[in-house]
């Protein structure tokens, strides 16, 4: 029937309330033809993993500006794995210091997109990563 849509969860874990970036990304992914489940502010890793499971998403985007990424991201990855959702691609937006980038990529994050990233960059990365899993 219809082509299979790419479904992406966009969430803001942790306590900072700056969701402008998350909304811009959500909009860009929508404009790229994806279905974006937007969950809003102050999500716990548990809430994110649960939503990712119920919504059967292909990717999860986390927006973090609080500096807590080294605690939150590994936890989300771990919970996805516990739920047998290792195939779900995780990407980050927000503020991540350079020295943390290789560590997070090593953990399995597909991309880290700071302020000023062109939307086509992450749109293409996500599409490529998701289609590779499906193939």
């Amino acid at each position, binding site marked *: *029937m*219809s082509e*299979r*849509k790419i*479904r992406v969860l966009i969430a803001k874990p942790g306590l900072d309330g700056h969701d402008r970036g998350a909304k811009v990304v*959500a*909009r860009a*992914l*929508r*404009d*790229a*033809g*994806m*279905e*974006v*489940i*937007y*969950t*809003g502010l102050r*999500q*716990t890793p*548990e*809430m994110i993993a*649960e*939503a990712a*499971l*119920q*919504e*059967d998403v292909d990717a999860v985007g986390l927006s973090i500006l609080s500096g807590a990424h080294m605690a939150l991201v590994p936890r989300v990855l771990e919970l996805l794995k516990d*739920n*047998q*959702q290792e195939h779900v691609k995780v990407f980050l937006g927000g503020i991540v210091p350079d020295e943390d980038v290789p560590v997070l990529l090593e953990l399995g994050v597909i991309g880290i997109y700071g302020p000023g990233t062109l939307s086509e960059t992450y749109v293409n990365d996500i599409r490529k990563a998701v289609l590779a899993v499906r193939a």
Partner: protein
Amino acid sequence: MTETDLAQAVLAGDRLALARTLSQVENGTAQGRVALSGLFGHTGNAHLVGVTGASGTGKSSLVNQLARSYRHPGDGKLPRQVAVVAVDPTSPFTGGAILGDRIRMRDLAGDPGVFIRSMATRGSLGGIASATAAVVQVLDAAGYEMILIETVGAGQSEVEIAHLAHTTVLVEAPGLGDDIQAIKAGILEIADVLVVNKADLPGVENTERALRGSLDLAHPMPHHFVHHGQLASIPAQDDKAEYPQPIWEPPILRTVAIEGTGITGLIEAITAHRLHLDASGGWELRERWRLQTELDILLTNRLVEGFRSRLPAGVYEQALEDLLGRRLSPFQVVDKLVDMVG
């Protein structure tokens, strides 16, 4: 996992299998159809409650509160298993969608007795997606007793939810238009329960009065019976029931969803409607009506597909050209095509 395993896992309460089955069904895949066939015999137990109304009236917040109340009923009642299907619109230009109903449903996180699924309309215009009925069947088979279906922000003619739900709740809010809106045909006629949400805002009396006025007018009119009239048509052949309340009068309730005010009353109204459907024979009629709608749609699609595959190559395209060139009318084209295949 094979498709039959998938269905078995759904019946066994495996949430991952459920989520994947919902995707297969939503995407209309062959695996989805096989799984659905394995699950269909287990459906028919859930009470399907539609929640509809204009954008910004507070549907998602109300669904959140309803689900919470069903999970924590108090009074020594047993909590119900609750599923939420929340529909948001697909962009007609890009095919993408922002599904934002979960934002208002944070209270339900972490509860294994709740399952929330967001759906995009994917081109359907009736307020729900064409796959919503099938998605609801899967959740029904999975054992969810209350299934709350939130439509897209619906204005006037998004009435398809009435074909799917047993009970349709229409949500209004103060200040959203004059009383002529209330007497237009369409969405008001499908409501089993009317809610004026945001009842702490000024103008709530006006909204309530406009709704009440239009309902009072609607009641003695035959057109109201087209929807509820299915109930009125049974007594002749069914002598067993005393109809204590053959016609359901939609109550008008006030709520403030973000504070949880009025939710108990709304739950009571939904339960009362369920009891009314049971007592009046309306439940079976709605089931029949719903399944007939679904059957007709599936049958039409299948017949059209089969028909097209039997047309010689190029004939359909040529017929379309004849239409575009105004050489034949649509009726003539259909006659010609049908004659050709026989």
